[in-house]
């Protein structure tokens, strides 16, 4: 179980929730990080979807993720528009999860000038206030 918090530095827009993603978003509100895993080829699938993009099997199930990974690459965004205009600089990153997939996310709770490729990170959930929370990542001990 990871932290779910409502006091956030970045905007937390409410995601679009559909029948395929409802279980994922319900889990985020409880601080649980899950995704689909293929029972045929054993790959973890990000983003979660019912059909495996690697072997096209429909035999996929929800499985917990450790919520840990490393920064694969990142960019410090210094100019942005809309709701994001007031929160620059912020970090957009690919995090390579311990289970394999790379996901796009934000790195939070960090000095943006110190973020580096290979840094270990852990998930933290940022509450949207509408029964869902956005998975973001923060620096973690090695």
């Amino acid at each position, binding site marked *: 179980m990871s932290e779910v918090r409502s006091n956030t530095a*970045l*905007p*937390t*827009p409410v*995601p*679009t929730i*559909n029948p395929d*993603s409802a279980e994922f978003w319900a889990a985020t509100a409880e601080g649980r990080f899950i995704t689909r895993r293929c029972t045929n080829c054993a*790959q973890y*699938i*990000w*983003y979660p979807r019912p059909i495996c*993009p*690697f072997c096209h099997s429909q035999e996929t199930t929800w499985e917990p993720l450790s919520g840990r990974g490393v920064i*694969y*690459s*990142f*960019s*410090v*965004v*210094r*100019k*942005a*528009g*809309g*709701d*994001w*205009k007031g*929160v620059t600089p*912020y970090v*957009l*990153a*690919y995090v390579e999860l311990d289970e*394999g*997939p*790379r*996901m*796009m*996310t*934000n790195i939070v709770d960090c000095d943006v000038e110190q973020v580096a*490729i290979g840094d270990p990170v852990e998930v933290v959930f940022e509450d949207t206030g509408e029964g869902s929370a*956005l998975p973001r990542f923060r620096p973690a001990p090695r």
Partner: protein
Amino acid sequence: MAEDVVVAGVGMHPFGRHSGRSLKDLARVAGLRALLDAGIGPQGVQMVYSSNAMAGMLQGQEMVRGQTVLREIGIEGVPVVNVENACAGGSTAFAQAVMAIRSGAADVVLAIGFEKMFVADRSRTLDALESAADLDVVAGLGIQFTAVYGMRLRARLADGSIARQDLADVAVKSHANGVRNPYAQHRVQVTAAQVLESRAIADPLTLLMCSSICDGAAAVVLARGGALPQPGRPTVRVLASASTSGFTLDPAGGPSGATLCAQRAYEQAGAGPGDVDVAEVHDAMAPAELLYAEQLGFCPPGDGARFFRSGATALDGRLPINPSGGLASRGHPVGATGLAQLAELTWQLRGEAGERQVHRPRIALAQNSGGWLEGESAAVNVHLLERTQRWT
């Protein structure tokens, strides 16, 4: 080899900020110039593929965009197919036109792309650009395309295969070419120091490395070989047309969409990257040229910067890349860009590119990518064009 399809005419409206002009104005100029270049009138067009990405959000013209601009120039009563494929829409329209001719459905087809990104509220343009991704998955992340390219390049800076100086130098080269292109948006020579000192947008990218908001239009008339004889002018033939959608990257790695498309195109043409004499690649951020040189097979993986430093990609190099100035300098009005690339290459193959003419090219490659899906472009098209007559 499928039946010959030739580029019979090309035309552009200059790219830039055109505040007093409407979408119809932009499309009219590009469309009429392409018809004129092909030596036909509006009645000669049998079918149209029309590319625009953002007029739904920016001008409120969510539907029938092609029909609304085409009737301005008297193209009516023919099939008009509206195409949207983010930044790759223009080349998608071109690819569909090639298919229509090869299928026998038509002999003369117009592919036209137009975009007007300058609107009163700039944040609407940024929102429209953001929608080139899967918003269900990334809407909450403050995603912007500069940062997506920034992440690709950051990994290469970290492994030492590209230096920060290369990012600036390639932007200098793009602008040097754009200065010579009367259709380009940014026609100002810049220095590497200016590029590095310009405002940081998304590390490691600075303002002068990036394409910007732009208005413009481009059009191409395609014809079945022999349908529109143009005696006395070199013929530009479509050698290959290859397309792909994005795909989920296998964690074990694998070729990019651009690589897959290029391989398909080389196979269709019975040619290889070594046969390409000039290329226009999708450098929405100028340094992307370094990555695409590798992905298109112009140099070995990891060698993009070395290839660039050798001078091979300069106007007078072995394989000039983006003689037009590319997206970063010529400009990137989303739905028009792919057709601007093909117009540029047609001029290059004919020897009509003026001050930016490269030396006697025979085979040209255009690569146009659009949108973004978890690590890959959502749409990619690669085209190969050939000049059939010898240079004399």
